[in-house]
């Protein structure tokens, strides 16, 4: 495990959690902070490689767009799909208010 002063700052870990829509407890934040710092420190070894002039490779497959005829085909019945939702009022999915009482979200 890396020493305390080389750890990812706690506010960075909290920001990452927020971006990922996760809300870990303080104890979990402390654990993830150590573990992520450890993994990132090892990954930092990539920086020592000379990769100048190499094009990034995001996908090994054929990256041409594959288009098909614009004709309607069968779809899943909406009842079937709707039945998967934790809360619903067909034909709508139900969620709590987007804006809270105080207007902040």
């Amino acid at each position, binding site marked *: 495990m890396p020493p305390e002063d080389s750890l990812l700052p706690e506010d960075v870990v909290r920001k990452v959690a927020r971006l990922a829509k996760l*809300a870990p407890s303080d104890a979990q934040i402390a654990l993830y902070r150590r573990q992520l710092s450890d993994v990132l420190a090892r990954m930092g070894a990539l920086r020592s490689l000379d990769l100048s002039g190499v094009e990034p490779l995001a996908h090994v497959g054929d990256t041409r767009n594959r288009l098909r005829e614009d004709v309607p085909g069968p779809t899943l019945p909406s009842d079937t799909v709707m039945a*998967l939702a934790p809360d619903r009022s067909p034909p709508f999915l139900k969620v709590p208010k987007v804006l809270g009482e105080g207007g902040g979200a």
Partner: protein
Amino acid sequence: MKTDQPATTMSTTTSVRRGELTCRQAVENAINAAHRHAPLNAFVELWEEPARRRADELDRLIASGATPPPLAGLVFGVKANICTTLGRTTCASRMLADYRSPFEATAVRRLREAGAIPIGSLNMDEFGMGSSGENSAHGPTLNPWDRTRVPGGSSSGGAAAVAAGILPLALGSDTGGSIRQPAAMCGVVGIKPTYGRVSRLGLVAYASSFDQIGPITPDVHSAAVALTHLCGFDPDDATSADLPVPDFTRDLLADPGPVRIAVPRQARLGSNHPDVSAAFDRSLDSLRQDGAQIVDVDMPMLDAAVNAYYIVATAEASSNLARYDGVRYGRRAPNAASLEEVYTRSRTEGFGPEVQRRIMLGTHVLSAGYADEFYLTALRARRVIKQEFDAAFAMGCRAVAMPTAPNPAFRLGEKAADPASMYLEDVYTVGVNLAGLPAISVPMGLSTSTGTALPLGLQLIGPAFEESAILNLAARFEARVGRWSPPA
């Protein structure tokens, strides 16, 4: 070698065709074996009644004198991240604990249409994220060779069920080694096909540019049989390769002619377990005796494969798993007061710690200020890794050989607290996924220095869409060295 070897696909389907075994008997055998081996925790659930109904249907068809479909009576298990309409598709996650897919994966459909019978959902590391089978909401799967040890992961249940003789075929998925590494640790065969060979429709996405479905089987021939039926173009998967599929069982043991096999210097890490190094050297001798020329090559970027893989795979995972929002399907946290709380509480309660760790890692490496340093650098390393494999093949090598894993199966809990050390177990498998190549793991012997016999795997990596070449080499290797089964 023990005599209680699990039934292979060939022995099962041949027995059915000859009338020596009914499909119903094959199903009952598998169900009984699954119950007998329940402590392994290989299954999430069994689909007993649908399997019996399908078996009876096939038996009636056979009794009527009709030609049975080619895989009639072949019972198989389905990793819990591959959709079926027979039960739940949990991905071993609390997030999808009650999820029932409204559609079936193409891979499952293809096997079913060939007469194979799906029997149950197989345990795994949650969403495919793990190398030990321990990251499962259903609890860990145990290794049939030694129940104090992990079976490998993430296709933990499939490898364990095939090794224990419950199933002649399990469908797994391999994003960074998740078919090959558990196959190696359980002493069975696992093949990751070329990216694009098998449709990903119905495979729950972890890292879309790596994920591939493939078979785990008791022997190489069974893998060839399964692959012949699994592969093929699927217009509903935009990354599916529109290429002809050979009959992989043909010429399986044919003389391959002069063969060169590359061995990267980087596959002989000083950190390999000594039993792994010794078994690997013996395997190379065996390949030489079979006429192969072993060529030492240098693939320096392989040393960076684990780092590159865990950056790119977690980046893709952070995006793919954003879909679990507690709104359309999956778990919703009760009593959330706002939409924001629905998202965060559902995800925090629904995902296990390793999944949360990987989502956060992926979010971090893609975030402003870090994307260049991590993500783009990893994608550059990925290109060089692919070029290093291509260079070995351009030298006339038919395959690249490496151990499948640097260690035999480790103890449950041994690496659970240290993710970085767990990630290093994937050192020999992830490069293959970065390059999109096909690779097979075939048993190469036993490690005995730990006190229990633990199987080890030889990995043979081929050029894109050359599954035939590595199946041929693996089948010939298996014919020379034999197969091993866990103590009864």
